[in-house]
C-alpha cells in the first residue's frame, strides 16, 4: 500500500521575491535550518511515507540542486529499482508540458498514485493518512490544506495524471494545480487538512520569519522528531567548538563551527567561524561563512561563503532583514 505512491517535486519555482537567496540557485536549494536545503523537507516526507521513486523537475540554474541531491543516497533513494530521477526540460514552461517530455518515467512506473508537490514547503508530514483519505473518499484529486488554505501539494492517481498530461492542450490546464482550481471541472476534489507546523517559503520575509520561529522549542519539535527524520546531504563536520569566552544563547547551531563571539537568537549553519568580540543577533549565517573579530550583525541573512571582516557592522530590520550575497566580502569600511 505504502509503496504505491510516486513522488513528483516541481522545482521550477521562479526566484520571485526570494531575492538574492535565489541568485545562483533554485529556490529548492536554498539552505535552511542550519544544515538543510528547502527541498529536504518534502523529499524526506516522501521517503518517510514509503515513497521509493521520486521525480524532480528542476529549472535552471540547478547545479547546486543536483550537487545537493547527488545519487539520492542520503535519502536512501539510490535504488536499483525506482529511486531518484532528475528531469530537466529546458524548452518547456508548463508543469504538464514538462512532464510530457518524460512520459516514459510515468509509463514505466507501476505505482498507482502520485504526490505532486512544490519544493519549498517546510513541514514534517506523513503522506500515508493522506492516501487513506484519498482512497476512502473516492477522490479524483486531493489537495493538502493548512489552516484552510492550499499547500499546493496534491495526490491523484497516476492514471489521472497521465490523462491530464495527454489532454493538456484541450483542457488548457498547465498544471495539476490549474485542474484543481478550475471550479467548472468535473473532477471529484477532496481536501486533507494538515494540523502540524507548516510554512511555505515564497519570499525573503517568509524565509526569515520561519527560520526564527524554529528557535521556539514547540515549533522546532513539530518539525524534527526521531521517527520521521529530515534527511540531508551528509557532511563530515566535527562537533562544534565553543571556545572559552564565547556566549551562545537561544540559538540553533550546526556542526563544524568554531565560535568565539556572542550569538543570540540566531541560526548558524555548518562550518561557520565567529571571531572574538563579535555579536550576532536575530541573524542567520549560512555554511562556511567567516565572521571576523569585533563585528556586529543584527537582522542579517549571510549567505554561503561570505567573509565578514574585522570590525564590520551589518544591520537590517526585523521587517526587512539585510541579505548578504553568496561569496561576498564585507569589510568594515563598506558596511559603515
Amino acid at each position: 500500500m505504502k509503496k504505491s505512491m510516486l513522488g513528483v517535486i516541481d522545482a521550477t519555482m521562479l526566484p520571485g521575491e526570494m531575492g538574492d537567496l535565489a541568485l545562483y540557485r533554485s529556490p529548492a536549494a536554498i539552505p535552511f535550518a542550519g544544515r538543510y536545503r528547502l527541498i529536504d523537507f518534502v523529499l524526506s516526507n516522501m521517503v518517510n511515507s514509503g515513497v521509493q521513486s521520486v521525480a524532480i523537475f528542476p529549472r535552471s540554474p540547478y547545479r547546486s540542486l543536483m550537487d545537493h541531491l547527488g545519487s539520492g543516497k542520503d535519502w536512501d533513494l539510490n535504488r536499483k529499482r525506482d529511486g531518484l530521477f532528475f528531469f530537466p526540460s529546458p524548452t518547456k514552461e508548463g508543469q504538464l508540458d514538462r512532464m510530457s517530455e518524460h512520459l516514459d518515467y510515468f509509463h514505466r512506473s507501476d505505482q498507482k498514485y502520485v504526490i505532486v508537490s512544490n519544493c519549498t514547503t517546510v513541514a514534517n508530514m506523513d503522506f500515508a493518512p493522506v492516501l487513506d483519505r484519498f482512497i476512502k473518499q473516492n477522490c479524483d484529486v486531493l489537495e493538502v490544506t493548512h489552516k484552510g488554505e492550499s499547500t499546493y501539494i496534491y495526490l491523484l492517481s497516476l492514471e489521472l495524471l497521465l490523462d491530464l498530461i495527454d489532454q493538456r492542450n484541450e483542457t488548457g490546464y498547465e498544471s495539476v494545480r490549474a485542474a484543481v482550481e478550475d471550479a467548472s471541472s468535473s473532477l471529484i476534489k477532496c481536501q486533507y487538512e494538515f494540523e502540524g507546523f507548516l510554512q511555505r517559503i515564497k519570499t525573503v520575509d517568509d524565509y526569515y520569519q520561519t527560520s526564527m520561529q524554529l528557535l521556539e522549542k514547540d515549533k522546532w519539535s513539530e518539525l524534527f522528531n526521531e521517527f520521521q527524520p529530515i534527511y540531508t546531504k551528509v557532511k563530515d563536520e566535527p562537533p562544534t567548538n565553543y571556545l572559552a569566552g564565547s556566549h551562545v544563547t537561544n540559538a540553533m547551531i550546526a556542526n563544524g563551527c568554531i565560535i568565539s563571539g556572542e550569538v543570540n537568537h540566531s541560526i548558524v549553519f555548518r562550518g561557520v567561524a565567529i571571531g572574538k568580540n563579535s555579536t550576532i543577533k536575530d541573524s542567520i549565517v549560512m555554511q562556511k561563512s567567516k565572521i571576523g573579530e569585533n563585528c556586529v550583525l543584527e537582522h542579517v541573512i549571510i549567505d554561503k561563503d561570505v567573509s565578514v571582516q574585522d570590525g564590520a557592522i551589518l544591520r537590517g530590520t526585523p521587517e526587512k532583514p539585510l541579505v548578504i550575497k553568496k561569496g561576498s566580502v564585507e569589510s568594515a569600511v563598506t558596511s559603515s
Partner: protein
Amino acid sequence: MAKQKCVAMLLAGGKGSRLKELTENLAKPAVPFGGKYRIIDFPLSNCANSGIHTVGVLTQYQPLVLNSYIGIGSAWDLDRKNGGVTVLPPYSESSEVKWYSGTASAIYQNLNYIKQYDPEYVLILSGDHIYKMNYDTMLDYHIEKQADVTISVIEVPWEEASRFGIMNTDADFNVTRFDEKPEKPESNLASMGIYIFKWSVLQRYLEMDESNPDSSNDFGKDVIPAMLADNLKLIAYPFKGYWKDVGTVKSLWEANMDLLDEKQDLNLFEYSWRIYSVNPNQPPQIIGSKAKVQHSLVNEGCIIDGVIEQSVMFQGVEVEEEAVLKECVVMPNARIGRGSYIERAIVMGDLEIPENTVIRNDSNDILLVTEQFLMEHTEQQSKVEEA
C-alpha cells in the same frame, strides 16, 4: 580480484577490559570518542585519506555494533568495486572453530583474504588508538629503506616507557632489539602497533609462527623477535604528532579533553585530513536562552539548557536548566536532569540522570557514571541524609 599494492589489516577484536562498562557490550574500537566518532574512525579515515582502499577488519569480541557500524564502508568512502572494507570474523573450519588466539594468528587465519589481492605490502593496524597519520608516507619510507618490516614508533616520556613495547635502534633507525614493557627501558621509542611488512616475508613468518606450538601468536612477542633473530631488516619509522592509546577510562577521558586543548596536535577541523564517521542525521543543536556553553565540543541533536564547561557532548544529549557539567564526556542520548552537578566524569549513553543529582569527584581518577553507579550513589546520598 585486481592486484593491490598494499592491503591493510585492522585488528579490531580487542576487548578493552580496562574500559569497564564502556566495553561491556562493545568492542574497544567501537567505543565512542570526540563527540561524534568511534575509535575505529581514526584508522579507517587514515586509510581512506592515505589512498589505501583495501582494508580487512578483524573482529572477534562483541562484534554486533562494530559490524553494523562498518557496514559496507561507505562512511569512509571505502565501498569499492575492487577492494574496499571487508569484515573478517573468526570462522569454523571442517574440524574446529578457530578463535583468533593472538594478533598474528588472526592475520594467519585470513591469509587467503590477503592472497586474493596479491599485494606487495601488508599494513597491520590496530583499532585502539587516536591519531592522524599518512600511511602512504610510511610506505614510501619502507620502500626507500628496502626494509622487510617497518614499525612506526613514537617518542614517549621516559618515565612512561615501561608501559610500552620499546624499540632499541641504531642511529639509522635499524631496530636492534624489541623489549615488551621493559622494567628498565634503554630507549623511549614506543611501538605504535603499526607495521608494514613485505607480503612474502609476512606470509613465511606467519606460517612458521603458526606451526610453533610454544608461540603465543603475537606480533610483538613472537613474530617481530623471530624476525630480529633471523637478522631481517627491521626499521623504525619515527612518527611525530598526536597519538594516544585510549585503553582506560582515564585515558579515554584525557583524549577527549585533549580535543579542547589548543596546544594539542589533534585537529578535527583540518579539511584535508577529515575524520569520517557514520552520520547520525540529527537536527542542529539547540542552545537555550539560559544555557552557558564554555570551552566545549557539542554535536548535532543536543539540546543544552544548562551550563557546560570544558566538556564533550555526543549527539542527542539533553542538559536541562540549572544542570552543571564540568570536565565531562557525555555519551549519546544521555539526559542530565535539572539542577544536577557532575564533574570529571564520563556519562554512559542513554542514561537518565535524575534531577538534582550531585556527583563530585575529588579523586585523581575519572568517574564512569553508569546505571549501577547511579544506584549506589543514590543509596549513599540517602544514608548521608539519614545520618
